[in-house]
């Protein structure tokens, strides 16, 4: 028997685990990621699952995948090309093999390549035998048989034994990339502690997979990926949805406010509701409303009564909330509206990513109805952006659209945990009570205080957040046009025009209270690559690669989409060309052209998938050479 010889060093590796929805691929990928993060690699992940919870087993529609990119250098994307694909059945092979680089490794569970399995995946011939995989290093592992064999003494039934086979793959891959098993074992004990038979079985199979790697003759060598040189500090692995939820909770604490989160379950935003519902001891109230409209309306009501009102959804849900957002604009109440974007229109691609709701966030309401719009650019960045959305909403008495997307919501990366002691409080003021003074003429002999002016503004045009329960500040608000200062209903033509201008100016003035736009790269030059939201990692990586080729290109990623940073127009004009990269058909480009009268090129993709670094690099080079 030949033992594998030697260890090869790799800077970065991309692995994709793919199988049937029921095969546990998300779990396998997550556990491998966790081990790598604890080991000290930088990581970036991309789960890709079907909209159907359990499509018929073995079919192309039921394939679930989890991609992890880990490395010894800083990573900003889950990787363009797959180095190692683990495919648990023919359908998983078929839908994923095109993403594997030439010469990459394809590990399959050969026990699941029977005639029926092949037929379900629409294979006419067995790809393991017909030479179609010759450009890859094909490794056939009888994972089902080996799992059953490893568990021959286990009291579990055959079906339950079979369900352990994902741990076989995890053990094998852990061996191949030199990952220790103890972190997974700890997790198994924690997860299945109450069911020792299952825990033991999973542990046995994990070790069997690891041992198989050591003893089989398929692998010439194992790989080593060193620790990444991340800035010093404490880290944790986090997904965008988790970071968003934690951001909301922390913003509530920084402002001394209870958080009210009204939401209706919708993919891919539901996890934010799930996370928040676990933190009631942080004064978090989660309300699973009867529909999207009730979700936003209850949040508006909560804000009126003094909570930090937040609602979360995805594109179709935002469409339903539109009228209520107009009410929030009219009543000038704080509100954060999270939109975890997915592929549209209509039900679209529920589990896939897209950035096509920018117009909806900017303009999707009746009347002249400006809303603040900000977008997070990575999983960990969702934390900062969520806190910022809450700060702007409460300090400026405005509803804020917070955009993330399915890609960063479900993707994970290491998060340098911020220092709680260094976080600035969010200062929120409420006017205090006004007592009635003695006198006569009002029923009980007291004189009511002067009528409260609910729309009297400060220098930022912000009206007071006067809370029900406060004596002497009784006032009425609503969706009808307001008279300035008093807030009474008013239909006068000049007042309406004045109020429209005032609401716009109030949003515009927020530009004075947000940071200026920065760029990565030269302050002026041949090309500025502009993006927003979850494409940041891919854009940055692509621009860095072209910069290394000695070219004059910079990357500008816009967090504040309405209002734009006050210097954005100047930044855009310092480059000969501007390229706007978006996962839509050019929505930001349209806005930038209209607002700044600049020409702008576009690189756009609407496949429900993130950008590949290579396609961005090609477009950048094409523009630079023309």
């Amino acid at each position, binding site marked *: 028997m030949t033992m594998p010889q030697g260890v090869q060093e790799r800077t970065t590796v991309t692995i994709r685990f793919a199988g049937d929805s029921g095969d546990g691929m998300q779990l396998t990928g997550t556990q491998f990621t966790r081990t790598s993060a*604890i080991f*000290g690699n930088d990581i970036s992940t991309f789960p890709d699952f079907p909209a159907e919870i359990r499509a018929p087993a073995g079919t192309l529609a039921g394939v679930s995948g989890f991609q992890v990119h880990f490395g010894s250098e800083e990573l900003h994307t889950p990787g363009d090309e797959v180095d190692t694909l683990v495919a648990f059945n023919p359908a998983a092979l078929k839908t994923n093999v095109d993403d594997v680089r030439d010469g990459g490794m394809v590990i399959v569970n050969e026990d699941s390549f029977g005639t029926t399995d092949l037929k379900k995946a629409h294979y006419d011939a067995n790809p393991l035998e017909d030479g179609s995989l010759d450009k890859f290093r094909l490794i056939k592992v009888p994972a089902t048989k080996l799992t059953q064999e490893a568990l021959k003494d286990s009291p579990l039934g055959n079906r339950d034994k079979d369900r352990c086979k994902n741990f076989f793959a995890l053990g094998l891959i852990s061996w191949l990339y030199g990952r220790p098993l103890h972190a997974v074992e700890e997790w198994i004990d924690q997860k299945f502690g109450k069911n020792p038979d299952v825990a033991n079985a999973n542990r046995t199979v994990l070790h069997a997979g690891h041992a198989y790697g050591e003893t089989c003759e398929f692998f010439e060598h194992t790989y080593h990926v060193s620790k990444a040189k*991340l*800035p*010093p*500090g*404490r*880290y*944790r*692995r*986090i997904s965008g949805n988790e970071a968003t939820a934690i951001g909301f*909770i*922390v913003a509530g*604490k*920084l402002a001394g406010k209870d958080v*009210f989160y*009204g939401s209706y379950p919708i993919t891919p935003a539901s996890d934010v509701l799930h996370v928040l519902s676990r933190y*009631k*001891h*942080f*004064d978090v*109230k989660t*309300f699973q*409303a*009867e*529909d999207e*409209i*009730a*979700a936003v*309306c*209850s949040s*508006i*009501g*909560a804000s*009126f*009564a003094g909570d930090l*009102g937040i609602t979360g959804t995805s594109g179709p849900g935002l469409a339903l909330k539109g*009228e209520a957002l107009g*009410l929030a604009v009219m009543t000038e109440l704080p509100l954060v509206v999270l939109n975890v974007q997915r592929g549209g229109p209509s039900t679209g691609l529920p589990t896939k990513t897209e950035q096509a709701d920018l117009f909806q966030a900017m303009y999707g309401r009746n009347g002249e109805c400006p809303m603040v719009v900000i977008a997070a650019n990575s999983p960990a960045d969702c934390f900062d952006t969520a806190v910022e959305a809450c700060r702007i909403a409460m300090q400026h008495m405005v509803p804020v659209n917070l955009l993330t997307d399915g890609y960063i919501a479900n993707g994970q990366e290491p998060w340098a*945990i911020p220092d*709680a*002691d260094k*976080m600035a409080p969010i200062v929120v003021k409420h006017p205090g*009570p006004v007592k*009635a003074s003695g006198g006569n003429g*009002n*029923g*009980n002999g*007291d004189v009511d205080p002067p*009528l409260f002016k609910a729309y009297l503004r400060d220098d930022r045009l912000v009206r007071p957040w006067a*809370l*029900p*329960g406060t004596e002497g500040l*009784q*006032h*009425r*608000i*609503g*969706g009808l046009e307001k008279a300035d200062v008093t807030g009474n*209903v008013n239909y006068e033509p000049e007042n309406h025009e004045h109020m429209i201008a005032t609401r716009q100016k109030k949003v515009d003035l927020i530009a004075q209270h947000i940071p200026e736009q920065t760029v990565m790269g030269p302050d002026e030059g041949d090309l500025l690559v502009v993006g927003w939201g979850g494409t940041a990692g891919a854009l940055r990586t692509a621009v860095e690669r072209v910069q290394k080729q000695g070219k004059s290109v910079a990357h500008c990623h816009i967090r504040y989409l309405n209002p734009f940073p006050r210097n954005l127009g100047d930044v855009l004009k310092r480059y000969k060309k501007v390229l706007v990269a978006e996962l839509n058909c050019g929505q930001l480009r349209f806005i930038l052209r209209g607002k700044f009268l600049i020409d702008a090129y576009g690189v756009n993709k609407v496949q429900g998938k993130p950008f590949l670094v290579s396609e961005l690099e090609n477009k950048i080079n094409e523009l630079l050479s023309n």
Partner: protein
Amino acid sequence: MATEALPQLKAKDFASDQEIRWCPGCGDYAILAQVKKVMPELGIPREKMVFVSGIGCSSRFPYYMNTYGFHTIHGRAPAVATGVKVANPELTVFVVTGDGDGLSIGGNHLIHAIRRNLDVNILLFNNRIYGLTKGQYSPTSEHGKKTKSTPMGSVDNPLHPLSIAIGAEASFVARTIDRNVQHMADMLRRAAAHKGTAFIEIYQNCNIFNDGAFLYSTEKDQKDDTTLYLEHGKPMIFGKERNKGIRLNGLNPEIVTLGEGGIKEDDLLFHDEQLAEPSLAYMLSRMRYPEFPEPMGVLRCVDQPKFDEEMTNQVKEAKAKRGEGKIADILNEGDTWDVAG
């Protein structure tokens, strides 16, 4: 600590500075007057009260009350009120809605607020017509109703607000009418005293688009025979001569005459608003003119867990179990690792 006596407020202390814009003769005036009259009796300061409404004639109500008020969007008042009450359970919250606002565009929110038993008072002004949009049929208009949008008569079957509320397991359900102001005041007091969702249907005359819709229940010569005023623990007796009653025949109500064929009071149905099982209340909600006298008063009043209270208790319980949450704790949860400098 010395307790400060609440100032004795009067009805006019609850009037806002806004000019009232309902049509002269509208039933809404009577309702507003009774609400203003009853509010001071509750001993709740004005600033602890919030009136929330949707869209429609009735929904202008909050503008005329010197309390906190929120005139929201069409049908959504129960949802907004949910947020208000959960954010600050110490507030006394009234939802003012109409048959269109509450049962058509906002039907979903209404039933869900009721089934959660949120501690709010819902006043549904039922005039069986769309007033603010100038005279189309509403979800409570009778089949065959001829209106601007149904010149040949409506082919919709009407919804019955009390049946809807009871179907959603409302813990307090009552009906009153704009012309019987004393009864209305009683119902408002009962609703305010109830913990949990209190739902009152108020028959309200729209003298412009549906004038006289409830005349049968208010005209002197008719009303005693067409309405049944419910009293807890009392037999269901009605009629000018107080000689008619409701008796159960199998599972159905029937009208009987006392004394005829030896029928005595004890043979009649006795009202019990506190029955845990809502079947009697539902049966009453289905008694309609002209076949039956229409019940007025409290159909149902039972104690059930309140949504806002339970939500508040969960926060308290979580804090008791896990301690008050600290920012540093939530940031540092999960798998963490340190990178040395």
